[in-house]
């Protein structure tokens, strides 16, 4: 196809390039064995990522991944793997969706939330690595962001309650955390985040 045809895509050239030539694929036939792995999303929700890491001297020396999902899900996981390679665990743990999206030259607004999950899968892999070796996990708390300031509710707390099936409805979340019972400013944000977490964890 001509360049002008491709230029009309909703995705940037970098997204396109990573989509067509994804880096660091976890090829099933290579028998590559990671030190730890993490998974997020589900086939039912339309996006699922699995990330494997090998850690040497506290750094990610090798990383491989698999993704079921749309072009931006594939490209963003590919870009995440490029960013994470060689990083210390602390640096890798702090990769954000915004960093991945920026490196890709941007993504359409509606793609940002549902498809950039590679960072989450990577964090799950690091958690898995530390846990399986009985090492302390100093990173988990440091990346938590407060969404409800009045009650000190963080994104991580919400995600954990969703994953553990403790908060199945927004009312249950309210009872457990007390979010939105102070100034009430956070209600929309918490509700949106809660729905997102339910979606990506297939709850």
């Amino acid at each position, binding site marked *: *196809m001509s360049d002008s045809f491709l230029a009309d895509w909703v995705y940037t050239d970098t997204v396109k390039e990573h989509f067509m030539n994804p880096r660091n694929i976890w*090829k099933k036939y290579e028998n590559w064995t990671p030190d730890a792995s993490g998974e997020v999303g589900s086939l*039912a929700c339309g996006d699922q990522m*699995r990330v494997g890491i090998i850690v040497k001297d506290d750094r990610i020396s090798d990383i491989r991944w698999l993704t*079921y999902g*749309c072009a931006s*899900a594939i490209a963003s996981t590919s870009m995440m793997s490029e960013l994470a390679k060689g990083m210390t665990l602390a640096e890798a743990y702090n990769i954000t969706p915004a960093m991945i999206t920026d490196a890709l030259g941007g993504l359409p607004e509606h793609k940002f939330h549902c498809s950039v999950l590679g960072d989450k899968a990577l964090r799950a892999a690091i958690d898995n690595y530390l846990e399986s070796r009985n090492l302390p996990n100093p990173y988990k708390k440091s990346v938590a962001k407060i969404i409800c300031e009045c009650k000190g509710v963080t994104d991580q707390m919400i995600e954990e309650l969703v994953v553990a099936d403790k908060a199945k409805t927004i009312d249950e979340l309210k009872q457990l955390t007390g979010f939105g019972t102070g100034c009430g400013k956070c209600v929309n944000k918490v509700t949106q985040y809660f729905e997102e977490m339910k979606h990506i964890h297939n709850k």
Partner: protein
Amino acid sequence: MSRTVYMDNNATTMMAPEVQKAVAQAQSVTYGNASSMHSFGREAAALVEDARKSVSQLIECRPEEVTFTSGASESNNTVFSIARSLIEKGRGKRIVTTTIEHPSIIETVKYLRKCGINVDQVPVDGEGRVRIGELEKIMGNDVVLVSVMTGNNETGTIQEIGQISEIAHRYGALMHTDATQAIGKIEVSCKQWNLDYLSCSAHKFYGPKGVGVLYSKKDAPFETYVHGGEQEHGRRAGTYNTAAIYGLGVAARLAKEGIKEEHDRLWAMRERLRTGIVKSIPDVVVNGCQEHCLPGTLDVSFPSAEGESILLMLDMAGIAVSTGSACATGSLEPSYVLLAGGLDVELAHGSIRFSLGRFNTEEDVDYVLEVLPPVIKKLREISTR
């Protein structure tokens, strides 16, 4: 060698060369307002009436039963607005439709419910066919309108409109069908099916975009939806889009002339594509009813490969198709049509619709069969499963 294959004819079609010519001619020469009394106006009006006649011959009704609209969405909205009005006048209490209609009905239903109107949606079976038994159960003398699409835009599944119309009338309800996808592909007859209303759009059968038809039976209730002028005997206001209407008429004539050949040719290409896919790609699911299906439509799910990714990789190779995946629309839910037919969510995310049309060739099909298998293989290799 770069090649382009347009296989998204259920989304829209290219205007037939004959239509393009007619539209261009009318656009430049017959620019008068068809409502004007002078010669310029009368010339334009003649083109509009010529088109009305062609449409009436295509869908088997009287010319005066044809109202020109901006397309099937407006026609559908008009019909549901008539039903609402009848309910508000106490002529009944309910509308009955299905779970697989076009968004211009699905969303209208949601809106009407908000306004306090009762609407029941009949479920479909695993092949996407309306369960006649369920329809019989749901029917009653309080139903004012039954609306069921003729052929589905995603799966191509065709409904028994004649039989459903008979059931509707047995309960004293009016019968509407959205025949947008069926026109020009299968025989559609207002007379044979004893319809009260029918909607369609020109651009689905090689006519211009932005113009369509609402058929309403002579004695069926009518209420104007777009107010403001005496056009169409006050049924639909707005200056006549003469060129587009004339183009619609030419498209209707072409559709009627070649319908049998068109049907057989599309079906042969569709079957060549289906058998080719099933043979060359392991683990695929063909969606919809294979026995009662629009001839050019093929909807296939590829487990472990996601629809938007498939669509874009095909796009890279110059092939245009559609997907029922949520990712392509920006919503979180995949195709409601496929889900309504009981399809697994994952399979809906991995669905691709190929829709063939008049300008496709066997070579197009063979090119798709060459490009598609490695695309699916590649996506499955990088998939979590």
